[in-house]
């Protein structure tokens, strides 16, 4: 319910007919609690940019724990200003408040001045003038308190504790304590911690790379033993070295096949341990397994010497290469249903099985395909649709001895808007061989038109 609706006299819980009588042009819509909950959870995900600890407060609230993050914005006021600007950019109506306790923040956000920041320990004065309903009480309790003429939280705060609890229930007292910071309150933050975590704490802080390598294996042994017991393997591991000064140094590795071999995992971390600065020493190491999946136990085969298993050789190799060079630098080409040459092969995961002879061998394709076709000039092509007789590429004049073609390849007009398709996107490919025996793949862009000079491109080499 926003301010405009409130101004028109609409209230929550009003009958639809009454509302229609008040505002004839009202457009009624069904309440969608599931969609609301989904939107709220999306908002929680989005709020992670402000704080890692975000809790949803259904049906329409969010709790952000900004302890230790506000300095990143330069202060609490700056954080709130940024938060406000970004929320406003999303077009959402909202009210903000910041206080020491979740209870006080809730009270101020719902009943106080929008955007108020309670000073440290000063939430008591701020919430004192608010109505008791701001304590997140049950409606009946709130109504009972109101019946007794208590209209401000300040009045509740002045009452003796025992009679207060007796008359209005222990919950009222608890809520009051939570708002004032006298009682604890646990929030359910959104990001559930990974259950696949192992932790090692040391009596003496460690700092040498050798020690770090050793403890990374020790912690991996712990986690992998658990993974093995439950028949699981993970494809991503993140190790965190917690320094004495509270900083955590993290490293992550990925595996191409879900694994749980501690030695192998530790080995993948090892080359990058040197990049970490242990400072005054590391007191705790944690290892988190992510992308955990069920793996079957491997059968040790007697003939394993003759026929190597992927797990023995190739998978560790691929992991080493990916972790060293990066995800996009190791791949296996697979087929894609497309006759546009550069789109007919796609890079896939290196251990994925690809069908043999997936491409039509009777359509010759070059061994080297340039990412961008290179322009050729001084092309002599005597008759329309004839292959060129000679052309110039990279400052070399190439005389064609044999040629075949054209193979006409049109764009995939069905993938885009039909207006974007044009006959100038048609390519006529020719396979030509020069006098030295070098084989080229050339195309002429567009259809042949009299008076318009044809544009020729070199797209690949056959070798």
């Amino acid at each position, binding site marked *: 319910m926003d301010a405009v609706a409130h101004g028109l006299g609409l209230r929550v819980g009003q009958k639809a007919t009454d509302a229609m009588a008040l505002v004839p042009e009202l457009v009624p819509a069904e309440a969608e609690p599931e969609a609301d909950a989904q939107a709220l959870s999306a908002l929680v995900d989005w709020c992670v940019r402000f704080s890692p600890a975000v809790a949803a407060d259904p049906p329409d609230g969010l709790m952000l724990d900004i302890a230790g993050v506000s300095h990143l914005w330069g202060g609490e006021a700056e954080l709130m200003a940024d938060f406000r600007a970004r929320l406003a950019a999303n077009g959402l109506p909202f009210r903000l408040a910041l206080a020491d306790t979740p209870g006080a923040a809730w009270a101020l956000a719902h009943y106080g001045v929008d955007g108020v920041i309670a000073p440290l320990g000063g939430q008591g004065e701020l919430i004192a003038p608010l109505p008791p309903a701001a304590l997140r009480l049950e409606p009946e309790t709130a109504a009972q308190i109101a019946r007794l003429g208590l209209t401000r939280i300040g009045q509740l705060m002045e009452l003796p504790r025992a009679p207060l609890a007796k008359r209005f229930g222990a919950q009222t007292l608890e809520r009051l304590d939570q708002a004032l910071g006298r009682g604890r309150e646990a929030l359910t933050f959104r990001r559930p911690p990974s259950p696949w975590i192992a932790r090692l704490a040391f009596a003496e802080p460690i700092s040498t790379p050798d020690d770090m390598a050793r403890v990374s294996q020790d912690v991996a042994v712990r986690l992998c033993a658990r993974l093995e017991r439950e028949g699981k393997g993970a494809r991503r591991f993140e190790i965190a070295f917690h320094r004495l000064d509270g900083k955590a140094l993290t490293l992550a590795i990925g595996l191409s096949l879900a694994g749980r071999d501690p030695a192998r995992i530790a080995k993948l971390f090892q080359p990058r341990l040197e990049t970490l600065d242990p400072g005054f020493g590391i007191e705790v190491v944690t290892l988190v397994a992510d992308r955990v999946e069920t793996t079957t136990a491997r059968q040790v085969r007697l003939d394993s010497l003759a026929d*190597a*298993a*992927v797990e*023995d*050789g*190739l998978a*560790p*190799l*691929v992991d*080493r*290469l990916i972790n060293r*060079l990066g995800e*996009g*630098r*190791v*791949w*296996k*080409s697979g087929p894609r249903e497309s006759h546009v*040459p550069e789109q*007919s*092969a796609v*890079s896939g995961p*290196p251990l994925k*099985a*690809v*069908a*043999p*002879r*997936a*491409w039509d*061998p*009777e*359509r*010759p*394709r*070059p*061994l*080297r*395909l*340039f*990412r961008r076709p290179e322009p050729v000039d001084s092309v002599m092509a005597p008759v329309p649709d004839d292959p060129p007789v000679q052309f110039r590429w*990279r400052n*070399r004049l190439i005389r064609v*001895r*044999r*040629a*075949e*073609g054209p193979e006409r390849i049109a764009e995939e007009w069905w993938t885009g808007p039909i207006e974007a398709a044009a006959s100038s996107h048609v390519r006529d490919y020719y*396979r030509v*061989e020069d*006098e*030295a*025996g*070098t*084989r080229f793949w050339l195309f002429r862009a567009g259809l042949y038109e009299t008076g318009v000079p044809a544009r020729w491109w070199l797209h*690949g*080499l*056959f*070798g």
Partner: protein
Amino acid sequence: MSGFRDGALTALKAKIAALEAGGRGDSAALSLGDPGLDACFPHAAGLPLGQWHEIGGEGMEVETAAAPAAFAALLAAPLAARGEAVWILRRDDLFAPGLVGLGFPAERLIQVCARDEADALAVAEDALATIGVSAVFVEAEAVDLTAGRRLQLACEKRGATGFVIRRRPFGGAGTKAATGSAAATRWRVSGAASQPGPGEFGLGPPRWTATLERCRGGRPGAWLFEASAAYAYEGHDGTHPLRLVAELGDRQLAPSTPLRRAG
């Protein structure tokens, strides 16, 4: 007496060979399908496996390395069928459909794009020493003695075969000289004019002129090869995909008529 000496000499030679092969005894070899050609290699057995070979081009091919790559792929195609193959590039312009068209099983090929030359050679070393990898192709500008020796040791670990395709980066200075004395063989490959069958138009099956410039324990030579089964469904009857068309004289092209035994 001389019989005894010969025997001792043979035993000593075998011992040295065993030492050289890292205790593996006789190393395997890949027959290229022609006895005369196989005879140029050690033990007259064909291309030695468990070692690395250097294949380079000339002229424009120094930068594009299309013909050397095609030749290396076909030379190693029977190997790739036995295990996995890894191709290490500096510039990812290798096109898998093109390899398949030539007759190389690209479905077993893992491609790796290295950041620089040292990276490429280190990855090649790692891949060569991996179980299940039978052939490793690496595109590198030059392999110096140390790197070559390291590659050789990696090859001996599991018996995998390496193919160094010499390729200069585009616009590179290209002053690095060929050393590669650790390589088992050194080839210079260039495309050769194809010969379409009688009554056929267009291009024939691809051909290459390959000069074996250096061969440890063998003798050099020059040949004209043809990939008869390229760009066709049939073929692949278990023979080596490279078919010897003609032996060429030392560093000169074959005379056109008498050597056209097949076409």
